[in-house]
């Protein structure tokens, strides 16, 4: 006996509409809001990894991959680690260690033969940090890590460092010992008042901690914070910060007065193809000055004076931009001069030199200077000047030294008309080292050691 099932068909159709509505209007939105994995992109996985990931083993796969990455670290196979970091963070966006290690790895570990790191990667490290922080908003770690990138690796854009550290400090799990970093970041960003205000608050918290917990660690912590705050206040007094605030700066003597002329000059010689000799003068006697030098394509995308736009959005690139050249190094000043050979001939991937025109930038920002130099120059360079190259534009709020030179591809590669001739670019005031000795193994301090020959 065959039957017709028109009623059943109708019922099924009706229920089909019900299920669609229940899912679209009720279940799916709730799930997506509260239960969906934050990331959960599967691109780049092999099919078996993908199957496992779908089967609910995302975190396990991530863990296994990360253990694998560890062996690559041991072998020094850094290139193999990048894709793993990428995959792991895609599979399990809560692997804080992987984000943290990954950022550090991308920013620091890709270097040329002379241990200069490949700055073209840094935007990817920043992007990874931002992504990690967004995916793990309940822990301070990745906010701290991203701030640290700006503070320590980029050594510029201190406002960004402050922004990230400030967020890190709002998290419940922040370690007390790490709170001082925001103090330093405020200072480097020129926000000394903020630093004081912040340190007083930290001190207050540590006093409370001592009351609650009489353990040695709490007291030691409190003492360290007190010390740091004392130092800060003494330096502010020495550098005339209080006087400036109260309008007495011009009337009295301070270490930062009058501004000291650093007497910068420089010469770049292309001694061999892709090898440059950089020399110059810097009139500061104490050791500890590092002048930044950048050599890059003159049309490098997103380039800023003596740096890049480090935050380039969320794209994490596993390969650096092909065909672009960006070299950044530091020139150490000893005996009031610097001299350094920079060899870019052995790393064609990092320094492809495909463009016609190149820009050489020299840059010094007193915000990065050690405290004993800042005692003279001030936090923002108010105690520093340079007759030729003082610049108050490129870093708002700071007085920096900045100048540029140009080189062509033919000059750098010593081809064409420069095959036999030695290309030399120099600042107008470069006059050689004069009486200054070339032996950097001995640091001369006038009045302490006798001059040679005596």
């Amino acid at each position, binding site marked *: 006996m*065959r*039957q017709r*099932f028109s009623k*059943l*068909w109708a*019922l*099924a159709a009706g*229920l*089909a509409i*019900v*299920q*669609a509505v*229940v*899912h*679209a209007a*009720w*279940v*799916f939105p*709730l*799930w997506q*809001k*509260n*239960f*969906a*994995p*934050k990331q*959960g*992109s*599967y691109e780049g996985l092999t099919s078996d990894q993908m199957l496992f990931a*779908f*089967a*609910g*083993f*995302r*975190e*396990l796969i*991530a*863990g*296994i991959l*990360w*253990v694998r990455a560890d062996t690559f670290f041991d072998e020094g196979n850094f290139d193999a680690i990048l894709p793993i970091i990428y995959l792991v963070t895609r599979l*399990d966006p*809560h*692997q*804080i*260690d992987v984000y943290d290690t990954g950022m550090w790895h991308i920013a620091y570990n890709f270097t040329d033969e002379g241990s200069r790191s490949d700055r073209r990667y840094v935007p990817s490290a920043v992007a990874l940090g931002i992504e990690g922080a967004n995916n*793990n*908003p*309940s822990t301070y770690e990745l906010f701290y890590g991203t701030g640290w990138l700006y503070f320590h690796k980029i050594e510029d854009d201190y406002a960004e460092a402050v922004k990230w550290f400030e967020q890190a400090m709002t998290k419940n799990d922040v370690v007390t010992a790490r709170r001082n970093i925001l103090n330093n970041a405020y200072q480097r960003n020129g926000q000394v008042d903020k630093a004081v205000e912040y340190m007083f608050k930290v001190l207050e918290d540590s006093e409370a901690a001592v009351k609650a917990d009489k353990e040695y660690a709490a007291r030691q912590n409190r003492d360290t914070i007190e010390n740091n705050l004392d130092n800060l206040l003494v330096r502010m007094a020495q550098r005339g910060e209080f006087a400036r605030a109260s309008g007495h700066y011009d009337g009295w003597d301070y270490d930062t007065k009058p501004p000291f002329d650093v007497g910068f000059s420089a010469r770049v010689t292309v001694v061999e193809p892709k090898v440059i000799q950089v020399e110059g003068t810097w009139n500061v006697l104490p050791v500890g000055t590092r002048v930044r030098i950048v050599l890059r394509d003159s049309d490098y995308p997103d380039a800023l004076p003596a740096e890049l736009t480090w935050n380039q959005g969320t794209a994490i690139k596993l390969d650096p931009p092909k065909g672009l050249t960006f070299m950044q190094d530091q020139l150490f000043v000893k005996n009031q001069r610097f001299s350094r050979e920079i060899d870019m001939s052995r790393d064609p991937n990092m320094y492809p030199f495909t463009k016609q025109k190149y820009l050489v930038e020299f840059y010094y920002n007193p915000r990065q200077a050690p405290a004993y130099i800042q005692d003279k120059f001030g936090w923002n360079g108010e105690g520093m000047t340079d007759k030729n190259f003082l610049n108050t534009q490129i870093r708002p709020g700071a007085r920096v030294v900045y100048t540029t030179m140009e080189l062509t591809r033919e000059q750098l590669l010593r081809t064409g008309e420069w095959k036999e001739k030695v290309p030399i670019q120099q600042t107008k005031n470069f006059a050689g080292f004069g009486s200054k000795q070339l032996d950097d193994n001995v640091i001369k301090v006038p009045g302490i050691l006798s001059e040679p020959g005596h």
Partner: protein
Amino acid sequence: MNVILAIAKTTLGEAIRRRVLLVILLVGVLFVAIAPALEALSPRQELTVLRSLTLGVIQLTSAVIAVVLTVYLIPNEIERRTIYTILSKPVRRWQFMIGKYLGAVGALGLMMALMTGIMLLVFVVMGKSKDVSDLAMLAKVPIAFFIQMSLLAAVSVFFSTFASPIVNFFLSGGVYLVGTMFDSFFNVLTKETQPLIVKIPATIVHVIIPNFQSFNVQNSVINPTQVIQNETMLYVGLSVYAVTYISILMILGIIVFEYREV
């Protein structure tokens, strides 16, 4: 109703004695039990990996059991000719099918309860849970899985009314995979930039396929960072959704089965 219950009870009794299912179950239980040994894979994330792994094993094992259990549900009856002794009694085909399905779901529930129990035991014995509420949070996830697997079982019971067991195994497995992954693709396929010829079919598939992804609530337990709102509403919603969808599959299955010559 008595008829359905009698068939369900017999089906359950038979299912929990099926050797292949017991082997799968044993593998699942073993994995759950040894899961703590694998936490070395992820220092500092031990708890995350342990939760993820045990829940993952329970889910995967349950899915395999759900499909293997149900693909043979009706074909076996036909092969053994027991279906004739049953259908020649005053039993309607829909009663037979629903009884078989309920029995299978019951067996599945028992097996999943066993695995969940072992998981909780592991957490207690290894000292991985802070308190009872921690365990309760963990135990809630398999409930969502159970609803999910009941839906999966209905899918494969539906297919079993016209497909052979092997074909059914892959069909059901495929539906499960697509139903689990589709959301990942859905967002890409329905982007503004996609042409309508991609968008429309993607939307239709999204509406039609049983959405298994929404039952995967383990993420909130594996990474308990955010405050979950409306959890009860989600579970209620999932149940309503599953019951509706299972009803559709049963109705379609009954229609096919009524026409089928067994």
